[in-house]
């Protein structure tokens, strides 16, 4: 294996208007990935505007000055490409992978919606996409058992006013109240070239991409005063565990145990990543071995732990288990807490550590196996840490984590006093 997690060339430039351009050429396949990270997410939303960053992402597909409504999708798919966009608390990303001969089309489309969305934005479009997003909320959060767990966990972990207190999907009330002027202002505020990173990976030389980027994006004006999101880096622990129990139409008791750890990108988060893998990834993990196999109180397919890789505040680490028939939520919560507690007291063995690192290595290379996976990674590191080449440091850093560091991190951030526990109980047993 290479020493770096990113053994491909990376070239960067910055246009006069502040747009950062990252290129990583790889001519293996005749495909090219175009990816834009805008440094705006739901953490920027003020009270009363929850869900706006994500609803705005939808509006970006609905036409701009030179692109008719729904034409963006049609042009990319008509070029043979795949495309999508996502919004999370930290950022919004837009991406398409196209056969390499359509690179210029993709750049033209992205430039048009970066620089020319507002004149094309209509009340009709807003109303339509508001309905679509409300259906997305119903489908993903309201109409499925446990679907609202994430919506409940965030306010348990982050206090009111914290940028991660509310979920990206937003509330129905705020979505209903969204007006056109707010979205016009949202675009003018955040969708500026100096608030974005354009990454192109695949069958395209850097010099060509830089020239095309300048051609299509170069004349878009920078914005001088982009307001930052509220600072959430410091979350003062209350010293009291938080518990919430929900009785709902769910098929079995389920428990989530959540903690704030460290921001993504920090050394602490690397430790938390390995720790989460030791704790809850795979059949060899502690949670599986103890709760699914050993005590047999958890359903084997539904036990696990993972970090949520947010960069602007101590990021969540979540462990979860669902009860086998006859097992109570209380028993399950005790079991989960025990296994989490032991991370500080029962040293991680060499075999556990090797297993976790092997799984993380495969996971890293899987992300690197496609041009789109690489583009999103480089865009992230350029946006959040100022240098795409730092992406290559992540895997070596994960592989350098020690058992001692895991025990220290567990003692520091996984204490029972800092724990949020969310339990679901089926209605009939309530």
């Amino acid at each position: 294996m290479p020493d770096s997690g990113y053994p491909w060339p990376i070239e960067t430039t910055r246009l006069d208007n502040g747009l950062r351009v990252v290129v990583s050429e790889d001519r293996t396949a005749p495909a090219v990935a175009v990816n834009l990270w805008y440094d705006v997410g739901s953490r920027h939303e003020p009270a009363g505007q929850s869900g706006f960053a994500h609803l705005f992402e939808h509006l970006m597909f609905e036409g701009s000055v030179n692109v008719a409504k729904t034409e963006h999708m049609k042009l990319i798919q008509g070029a043979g490409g795949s495309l999508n966009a996502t919004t999370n608390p930290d950022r919004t990303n837009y991406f398409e992978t196209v056969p390499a001969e359509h690179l210029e089309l993709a750049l033209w489309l992205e430039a048009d919606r970066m620089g020319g969305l507002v004149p094309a934005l209509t009340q009709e479009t807003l109303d339509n996409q508001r309905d679509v997003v409300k259906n997305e909320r119903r489908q993903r959060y309201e109409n499925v058992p446990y679907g609202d767990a994430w919506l409940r966990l965030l306010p348990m972990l982050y206090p009111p006013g914290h940028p991660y207190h509310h979920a990206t999907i937003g509330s129905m009330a705020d979505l209903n109240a969204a007006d056109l002027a707010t979205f016009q202002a949202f675009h003018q505020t955040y969708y500026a070239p100096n608030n974005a990173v354009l990454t192109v990976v695949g069958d395209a030389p850097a010099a060509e991409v830089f020239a095309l980027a300048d051609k299509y994006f170069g004349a878009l004006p920078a914005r001088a005063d982009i307001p930052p999101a509220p600072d959430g880096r410091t979350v003062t622990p209350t010293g009291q565990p938080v518990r919430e129990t929900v009785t709902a139409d769910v098929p079995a008791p389920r428990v989530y145990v959540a903690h704030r750890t460290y921001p993504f990108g920090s050394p602490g988060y690397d430790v938390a990543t390995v720790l989460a893998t030791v704790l809850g990834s795979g059949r060899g993990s502690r949670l599986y071995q103890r709760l699914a196999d050993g005590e047999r109180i958890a359903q084997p397919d539904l036990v696990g732990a993972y970090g949520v890789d947010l960069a602007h505040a101590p990021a969540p680490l979540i462990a979860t288990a669902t009860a086998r028939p006859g097992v109570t939520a209380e028993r399950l919560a005790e079991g989960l807490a025990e296994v989490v507690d032991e991370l500080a007291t029962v040293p991680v063995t060499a075999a556990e550590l090797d297993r976790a690192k092997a799984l993380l290595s495969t996971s890293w290379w899987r992300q690197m196996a496609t041009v789109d996976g690489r583009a999103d990674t480089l865009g992230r590191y350029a946006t959040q840490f100022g240098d795409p080449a730092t992406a290559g440091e992540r895997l070596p850093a994960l592989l350098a984590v020690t058992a001692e560091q895991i025990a220290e991190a567990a003692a520091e951030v996984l204490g029972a006093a800092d724990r949020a526990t969310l339990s679901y109980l089926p209605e009939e047993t309530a």
Partner: protein
Amino acid sequence: MTLIAARPGPGTARPYRFPAVVRRTVAGGQVVAAHLPGQNLAVALLLLDAGAGREPVGKEGVGGVLAKALEEGTAQRDATTYALAVEGLGTELVTGLDWDSFQVSVQVPVDRLTAAVELLAEAVRTPRLDPADVRRVRDDEATALRMDWANPGPRADAALRADLFGVENRWGRPMYGDPDSVAGLDVDDVTVFHSEWFIRPGTLVVAGDLDRIDLDALGAAAFAGTGGGPVERGGPIEVPLREQRRIILVDRPGSVQSTLRLGHPAPHRAHPDHVPMTLAGTVLGGAFTSRLNHLIREVRGYTYGIRGEFGTSRRFGRFMVSSGVQTAVTAPALVEAVGEITRTQVGGVTEDELAVARSWRAGQLSVELQSPRSIASALTTLVVHDLPDDYHARLRADLLAADVEQVSAAAAAHLHPEALTLVVEGDAAVIRDELTAAGLAPLADPTS
């Protein structure tokens, strides 16, 4: 104006190339591999003729239980030791099945591939299958299905499948079985299914940098101790269309959305109309830009998304539309969806729409075939459907050559809006009267 108004045209396309395919017979089994130079990751996938179509009627889900039981220890080591060995290489044992095949695979950095395949073979060929473990796995699988069936979708899927294909047939029952069928399995069902289908050599599919992979060693590991030849797979099954459209209502009290599954039987995978049929399905519902998604999502705002496609396996196929729509608009969404299916069947497709559909399907053959996992999946298609090494290049040419007449003819021949079964899983008390009043079709008793 700071924007450039003129839309750029395409540059010069590089020729399409699917990775070089290598086929080899090793130790009584077949190895089919694709060369991905420079890839750090490699995938090996053992393909067995042990899909859901091989499960006896009444034993639905036995393949899924066996899949889980494979990891409960082998002749050589217990479950925990096995898990640590596999995961210590950086992979999990990934199992899956469809109607035509059972698949078990590993994905690892290329230098660990032989060790991973040895472990894969150990679980597949020599699982311990201790009766107490098998019973526990069965109970866990039944519970897992119960969990899954608490979500919207599985019950609607089952109702549609039963109505299309008949519950007396294996292919009229859920592919993974249901909570009751799995709960009713016994240890012998599992061990017999293993001895019948998991000892035959099968095919080992490999995707990775073949300069760093010893295919003979992989084949020797995968096929050691196997025996028995291929078994006749059966021809296409004739499935009659319904004479009249019908609605099946699956009650989900309090649901804020209605889950829609609309479908009818369609040709099997080897049908000569496969390409034009796929394109007709793409224009109607197979892409974000399709007619259904445009109208129901982008114009009406009834849903987060709606898809419609022909789905095909070796012996049968079907056309199906699926969506989740807000409860209050269930009836108008159904009316509009049936309207678009009818319009496509009657009027065919336009050149403008087809241009997008054919370019998209063709382009996906390069854009979506990058990772070892996706290439392995493409190789699996070659094996399961007896296709040649240059299949993907030929498919690409066929897609690009399909014209409006061919695709419209396929839409006319293979869409049957009057024979649709419309399954609606939603709050019956709220939507029943509205569905009846919509006049689309009579409400059927799902058991008839």
